[in-house]
């Protein structure tokens, strides 16, 4: 049984089919990239896995249990965390408090314990935000906001993390930091990673497998080098002006 098993998932918005009959599987510990032109349905697929909207057809089984019909908070408690394409940290709260929300969501109201404090500080140190512990999130720059989202997600002790365009808007130096961080998520925390990205060069350095969506359909999947040479993928991208 696969760790994440997406079976024939379809989502329609009115007349538009945003995700059409998508099936794929992931094994525990993998880092998988999800690519595709703009509007291919990548973020929608994330939202379906995370429970933001219900899907119309199909089944998603995670770690042996179906996710159908679960709300986002419930999906999170099952062990799936996410970040957002446009960052949304809790702007009026400190980095430390942002991370604490993740602990509360996963473990309930335990109150401040030395153990929790230690773990929060450890996570913030891992992502490189230890010097901003008590800084309000609205004062952070983009890369640090993205790091904070990852830190917050890690606090929910996820087994799978969904990363939505972590690299967008970062400079080269920052990208290197981000790539190291993503590897660390898997290697240090044993978290499986499903990652939407537009910056192909960087993505290729890290992922072990690629999924390609186009027009809501999964057109290709497999090892990165093979996938990028696939004529269907090339056509999907050439059909698009930018990128």
């Amino acid at each position, binding site marked *: 049984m696969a760790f994440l098993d997406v079976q024939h998932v379809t989502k329609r918005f009115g007349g538009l089919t945003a995700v059409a009959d998508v099936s794929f599987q992931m094994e525990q510990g993998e880092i998988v990239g999800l690519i595709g032109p703009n509007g291919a349905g990548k973020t929608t697929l994330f939202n379906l896995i995370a429970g933001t909207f219900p899907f119309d057809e199909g089944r998603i089984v995670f770690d042996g249990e179906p996710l159908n019909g679960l709300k986002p908070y419930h999906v999170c408690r099952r062990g799936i965390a996410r970040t957002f394409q446009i960052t949304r*940290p809790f702007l009026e709260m400190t980095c430390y408090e942002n991370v604490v929300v993740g602990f509360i*969501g996963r473990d309930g109201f335990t*109150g401040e314990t030395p153990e929790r404090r230690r773990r929060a500080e450890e996570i913030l140190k891992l992502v490189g935000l230890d010097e901003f512990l008590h800084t309000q999130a609205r004062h952070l720059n983009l890369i640090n906001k993205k790091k904070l989202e990852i830190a917050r997600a890690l606090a929910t002790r996820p087994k799978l993390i969904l990363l939505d365009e972590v690299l967008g808007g970062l400079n080269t130096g920052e990208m290197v930091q981000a790539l190291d961080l993503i590897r660390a998520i898997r290697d240090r925390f044993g978290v499986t990673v499903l990652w939407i990205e537009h910056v192909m060069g960087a993505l290729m350095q890290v992922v072990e497998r690629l999924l390609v969506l186009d027009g809501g359909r999964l057109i290709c999947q497999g090892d990165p080098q093979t996938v990028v040479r696939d004529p269907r993928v090339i056509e999907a991208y050439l059909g698009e002006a930018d990128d």
Partner: protein
Amino acid sequence: MPRSLVWLLSLGLFGVLAVLPLVAGDYWLHTAILCLFYVMMAASWNLLAGYTGQVSFSHAAFAGIGAYVSGMCAIYFHLPPLLGALVGMAVAAVLGLLLGVLCIRMGGIYLSLTTLAFSEMLRIVIDNEYEITRGTMGLSVPFVLPFYSKAWAFYLMGAVTLGLLYVIHRIIRSDLGTAFRAVQNDETAAASLGIHVVKIRVAAFVISSTMAGLAGALYGHYHQLITPEILSLNLMFLVLAMTIIGGLGTFAGPVVGAVFLEVLSEYIRIYGEFHVLIFGLVALFISRFAPEGLVGLWRKRFPTLDAQR
């Protein structure tokens, strides 16, 4: 603020509260008791509006529920007022839960409109059920204590107010308070981290409504006459204006705002009923130019005092 300063301030406040009945005349003692009522109302409304971002217009209605239920318990079942106040509080909690479950799913504007409709419905019922509620004539109820003493009523209200503020402070600093703020900041992100947004919102609504019920019950028994005026939009406006002027979303804000406006209204009472107009203009001005209220202005003026927070 440095911890020692907090202790010093608290001690000073206690001292003032303790000796006030000994030095103040009847009139100022009455004003002080009104202040305590408004502090309870504003602080509990602020917990809801300032920390979870839900603007409820039924806060005065819940005070009315507390007052009427407690008053009717005393009149029809001869319960002692303090016991009645607990019943009033409980009824406010239950109705708060029902109303919260009903409208919080939809959030935002819907909550405001539903709570407004709820408080108007309640007012209509109380106006019309004359046999039970005495309508606009008002319901005469026994004094809050077995004997009549303004000074002791003040001590009682003061103790309850301090207790309530303590509970609110604990909530704000607890995990629940952190969840409140997370939901206010960004509910989608909060949900993605495992926070049950609707539950958190309803919890805030119920806690806040219960506190209003308690405040209303005590106020009713102090005043010995409960009229539909308590659940009017006027009281709602006063509570809202006090919170805004003091500082929405700050712990000290509603306390400062309530005392400031109540004392101010005693001074400008001679100009007739127009103090409401003045409060309104001040509140409008503050919400437009200093959304963090007097407390926010203070913090801007003396940023160092808060740096260690």
